[in-house]
């Protein structure tokens, strides 16, 4: 016989659980994940291209080369491109929420709290941001070497301060993860507020 005192308790959903489930979602819905990863990578590669170019030009100037600098308006373009990639991810994630209406409703029937749903979406966007950041940084580094190469020599990257490059690397990947998660907040919040009854009735 079940005892009445069992009528209260706590449901669980740890970060580890969310990671396990989130990875599965990314792997098995790869097409949608790739769109988000591409969106972040594109925005970020533009950003890293600018930052690394700036570093390489100043390295070249320090070594006695010509004075070329990244114009400040170009940073304005970078900001715009990052905003565009945030909007792109938000859009893709909103569609992902619609696709998953019934699943979200089902998960709530199985005991998920609102914040568990948010956590699951954020874990997915964390991974997408990480991969998008790594890809974006690599592209950015490559294009910065090519762009500065004609003026400052293609080997200038070897003379650039390692610490600065490392800082740019860590900064870019963190930025990518932060942007990806910020872009997901609104869709995740909408998903978590779904009423299970309506979510289950929803036909795509």
């Amino acid at each position, binding site marked *: 016989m079940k005892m009445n005192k069992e009528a209260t308790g706590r449901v669980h959903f740890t970060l580890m659980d969310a990671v396990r489930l989130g990875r599965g979602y990314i792997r098995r819905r790869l097409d949608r994940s790739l769109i988000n990863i591409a969106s972040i990578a594109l925005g970020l590669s533009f950003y890293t291209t600018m930052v690394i170019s700036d570093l390489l030009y100043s390295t070249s100037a320090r070594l006695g080369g010509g004075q070329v600098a990244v114009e400040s308006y170009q940073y304005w373009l970078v900001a715009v491109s990052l905003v565009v990639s945030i909007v792109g991810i938000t859009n893709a994630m909103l569609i992902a929420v619609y696709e998953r209406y019934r699943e979200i409703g089902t*998960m709530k029937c199985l005991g998920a709290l609102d914040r568990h749903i948010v956590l699951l979406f954020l874990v997915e966007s964390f991974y997408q941001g990480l991969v998008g950041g790594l890809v974006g940084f690599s592209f950015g580094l490559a294009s910065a070497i090519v762009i500065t190469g004609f003026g400052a020599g293609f080997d200038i990257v070897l003379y650039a301060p390692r610490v600065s490059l490392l800082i740019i690397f860590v900064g870019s990947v963190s930025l990518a993860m932060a942007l990806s998660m910020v872009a997901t907040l609104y869709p995740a919040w909408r998903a978590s507020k779904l009423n299970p009854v309506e979510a289950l009735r929803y036909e795509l």
Partner: protein
Amino acid sequence: MSYDNVIELRELQRYYKMGAETVKALDGIELEIRRGEYVSIVGPSGSGKTTLFNLVGGLDKPTNGSVFIDGVDISQLDAYELAWLRCRKIGYIFQSFNLIQVLTALENVSLPTVFAGTPHDEGLKKAEKLLDQVGLSDRINHRPTELSAGQQQRVAIARALANDPAIILADEPTGNLDLNTGMEIIDLLHGLNKMRGLTLVAATHDLKMIKASDRIVWMRDGVVERIERG
């Protein structure tokens, strides 16, 4: 103390606002369901079966009246307690199965154990055992799209049992199945009801399901029209 009536509905009302009109989906339901009972809820569409299902399952709040599960008025529960109730006390079975498409049968069945706080390995072991019990031990790593409708409903039944709930709520569980498959699902549910002493509440149109039940609650226009012994 424990309660013989695992479900009690008192003056249960659920109204919806549709523009200026008020739709009385449920209009004063009084019902007790004993532990281990198999009850069929029958009525034409629009009679309030699904609304009743949602209220008993803690998925929706009544306009007036109360739902008692194990003696606890669930409209008094907060979001955390309600989630716990859905997780541990009630197993849901739907007409359209509602399996999570990206997860395998095993992962679908073990998902409720995640929310219950069962360690990962233990949850998987439990899920494997349950899938074996519903006759799907050779399909545990298949995804829903790789399973027939009857197999998907078996996975859903195994999932509903994952946290050893006291109550199984089934909303038209045979509605999307052909005659023979539907019969197999009914036998499975009936067996679980008898062997595990599970309380089974099923909204259905299916005559064979109705025949197997202990009591039949006929609904019409949001009220209980009559109650028959099975």
